[in-house]
């Protein structure tokens, strides 16, 4: 039961990120909400590879006869973190452009395209 704790933490992260996206009014807080969801999904991915009592999957360094943790989720998580960096950088720079033209970061004011 205690081994399921990382999964529960990942779901809590995703839940907090969704709450921030749905209810917070500042554009920077919305960017933080997206980052929270990214962190939750990355944590979920890396926890999938855990095997009880196994060592780190370094091929040339492990003692013989030892089971290794699954290495594929580690590759998936690294790729996802890099994609997260690009996404976060783009969202923040576009928020800067919006501030330059609109003068505000409130989502109730940044609504010229509607209808």
């Amino acid at each position, binding site marked *: 039961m205690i081994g399921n704790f990382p999964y529960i933490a990942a779901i809590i992260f995703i839940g907090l990120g969704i709450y921030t*996206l749905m209810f917070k009014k500042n554009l920077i807080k*919305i960017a933080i909400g997206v980052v929270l969801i990214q962190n939750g999904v990355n944590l979920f991915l890396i926890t999938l590879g855990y095997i009880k009592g196994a060592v780190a999957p370094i091929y040339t360094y492990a003692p013989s006869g030892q089971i290794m943790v699954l290495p594929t989720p580690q590759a998936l998580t690294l790729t996802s973190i890099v994609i997260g960096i690009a996404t976060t950088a783009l969202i923040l720079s576009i928020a800067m452009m919006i501030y330059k033209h609109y003068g505000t970061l409130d989502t109730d004011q940044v609504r010229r395209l509607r209808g």
Partner: protein
Amino acid sequence: MNLSNHIPILIIAIPLLAAFLVPLIGRINKKATGILTTLALSVSLILTIILAVKILTVGPQVYVFGAQSPALTLPSGLKFPIRIMFQIDAMGIFMGLITAVVSFSGAVYSLTFMEQHSGLDKYYSLLLLLTVGMFSMEFTGDIFNFFVFLEVASIAAVALISFRGVDLGEPAEAGFKYMVVSSISALMVLFAVGIFYGQYDLLNFAAIASVVKYSQLDKIALGLLVPVLAMKAGAVPMHMWTPDAYSEAPAPISMILVAASQASLYALFRVTFSLYNITLNTLAVGWIIIIFGLLSMFIGVTMAIIQKDIKRLMAYHAISQTGYMFLGVGVGLAVLANPVALSQYGITAMEGGIFHIMNHAMYKGLLFLTAGALFFRTGTKDLNKMGGLAHSMKYTTIFFIIGAAAIAGLPPFNGFASKLLIYESVYRFNPLLSIIAMVVSILTLASFVKVFHSAFLGPKLPQFREVKEVPKSMVWAMAILSCIIIFFGLFPDLIVKNLVHPAVMALIEQFKYTGTVLGGI
């Protein structure tokens, strides 16, 4: 080295190489960036046509990355594939042809449309990256690879939507909304990838399809993937990013974004047909997709009639036409477990839906390009300010008439052929759906008559006295799409028999999809 074995990777590699060469060449000569982009995309178009001929005559193709030969899917002794691979069957190459034609026309149109802007090397580089992302989404056979290229295409698309945001505020707002919404959907796709990996220890579409058991976790993955991929395609009620993003992007980018949304629609069909097939409850999931289709059709077109901005109106029509595709393929999915109904009207409904994808990309692309031509010459997108432009812009008027007649479903253009297939087969499933589809078609015609009257008819207004016809490259790009529309309209049976029917059978027959990779067809 037999080069014809490596065509799938060359289609991706040549635009990718050009995307990184364009900023270097942009330092020497500004005009050379556009010419290099057009050359790279024309090579991709030719290679896609060669690959299409090969796949439709020989069979599905697999390209494995990093193996000793590109067709070696199962390395020695293993029973499941471990490398990333491209798996291209008839449905994948159908979408690949759409992407190739649309991006090539977009590049040709951009040669003169974007001439006065600065930062053109970044624009062409991002256009090539968006094309690479779309091609790989349609060709890949690996589910994590699909996530990576979904994000590549989204990031490139956001940067292109906000391209004019240096001077104006609205493109930046549209880009922000699209990026947030797109991040939510991509992360939900990654969560579903994690669920598949945690259960089966496999990341390959065909390998998962052969062992999927539809346990409770698989139901969660399906329940995450269907609404999120439908949202990227523009289904109501999650469609509100579509008018913002399509209207603020430059006109050729709006056309390529339409093809990017259809790539997400293709991924939805891949997941429900080839990954799960009849292990899921096809009637329930089929009805979910049909409800998406009905809502999209009706709300899309009723919101379109009241718009004042010409590109927002066309974006609402893109939502409405996507509803037709959901309707056609949803009916096909709902009767997938029932072989009698499938052969009577299910296959025809799916043919209508999938043929409509190609028709829609062509005529919606043409309409966005004519809207761009109007914006280029008059400087405004507001229909209240335009009028009487048919006197001076004759070519644009003719192309607009062809595009508007095609989208309204008037014979002899291609919209009528695919809509007829959808009407006649959906009627046999449930008559009410077909009647709503016909009412939506009439309202589509009504709103395009409104656009034609406001922008083109009427007397010549004094403020548009020195408006001339648009430059040559824009006319050529619109002419390519018009010729395809007229050809598909006059000879629809050639396209349906040779391109659409193999694509539909490739979706329905899951055993051929898994057999290509795991061997033993």
